[in-house]
């Protein structure tokens, strides 16, 4: 199965994190269900054209977060009940950005209503750009 995400080596985000986030998002929207196998490290590395060590690091992060586990003789299997969990870790990532946004809003003496308005506007802007493929940044 082709991977449901891309990596952008020119983004300000390390590639292992882009891969981990790509799988996390795919699990969160049900693209990988409980019991499904992730592709092998080799297959992921070859398809994305990246260092296998980088793929290892991404998978290790998903394993540490309890989304996947190694199953003998099969590979990395998506665990049951991880869809909600993947969503929750998505919430956490959004909260981190919102906390930063709230700090800026407070510094600008903005009230809560205005803050919500802006958050909704950002949501609308993002939804017109779906699917959210990583930017294809110009190289060099």
């Amino acid at each position, binding site marked *: 199965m082709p991977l449901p995400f891309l*990596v952008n*080596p*020119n*983004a*300000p*985000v*390390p*590639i*292992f*994190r882009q891969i981990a986030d790509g799988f996390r998002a795919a699990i969160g929207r049900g693209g990988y269900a409980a019991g499904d196998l992730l592709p092998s*490290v*080799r297959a992921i*590395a*070859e*398809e*994305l*054209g*990246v*260092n*296998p*060590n*980088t793929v*290892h*690091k991404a998978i290790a992060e998903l394993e540490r977060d309890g989304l996947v586990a190694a199953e003998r003789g099969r590979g990395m299997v998506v665990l049951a009940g991880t869809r909600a969990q993947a969503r929750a870790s998505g919430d956490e990532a959004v909260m981190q950005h919102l906390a930063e946004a709230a700090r800026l809003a407070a510094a600008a003496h903005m009230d809560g209503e205005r803050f919500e308005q802006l958050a909704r506007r950002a949501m609308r802007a993002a939804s017109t750009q779906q699917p959210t493929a990583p930017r294809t*940044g110009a*190289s*060099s």
Partner: protein
Amino acid sequence: MNTTEMSHASRDSAVLRGSDQASASQNPGKDAIELRCTGLSLRFGKVRALDGLDLTIAPGECVGVVGRNGAGKSTLFRSIIGAETPDAGRIETTPAMSRVEFLARTGFVPDTLAIYDWMNAGQAIDFVAALQPRFDPAWSAELQSILGIVRAVKIRDLSRGMQARLAFVLGLSHRPDLVLLDEPLLGVDAVTHDAVLEVLARMRSVQGCTMLIASHQLGDLARLADRVVFLDRGRVVEQCETDELVTGTHRLIVHGLPLGWRPPVSNALILARRQESACILTVRGDVAPVREALVSAHPSVRIEEVALSIHEACADRLRALEDRT
């Protein structure tokens, strides 16, 4: 560009970062080679092409080399394969091996193809096969097919990109345990570029070979390298894990600093420039202490923070090296 150099950070402070020990790779192949270059020096007349270069690459590790033109990258590669003999220093491997065995287990992909240009591509491959004791015909055929090599075309008639593709076949057909790539992707088209990255990922997955790659295409280094080393005037001046380079380099755009402000000498500061009324500081590591120091000294400043990609993280380091001259 509306940018003037303002001051250079840490002219003489120790820039060498990261462990001197090469970081262990997670899946070195059983035949992967450790390479150690110690104190390499080589002068061409008055030019010190290499000037006490130290670099250790762990078995199965991929190290990316970054430097301005003339920093010594190609001389380093040529010294490793024995095309140059350094005036001083040692090149050693673990396991230890004879020069003949080393060359049989090393694959070099140079930036320009050096082989008889009256041969056609097929003859060149057969010629290298005859010289190379570990040549693997099945793997070579697969490489030729992946890279779309047309055997009947004369080398002198090949385009830049076709020459680069042939260089990969000539350099990698013997499944080397140590792969040396000197600016290997110049002039290749997007499809070939992806095919080459796939080949390199496969060699690293299947064989766990050790790799040294010099490239100005920093996105390729982000894809391939575990660690990036910066070369300047024949020495390694900084090294950093690739992921850390991306997460640990930020730009602070500082508004409202007094005129004539000078950046403090700090190892955290990579580069400081003034652009119009703002100061642009490129910072390594944790930005919080730098922000706090600025705000406590100048309470009215406004600071914006920009996360950098590997391109800017490397380019600003190279600019800083340039400023030191």
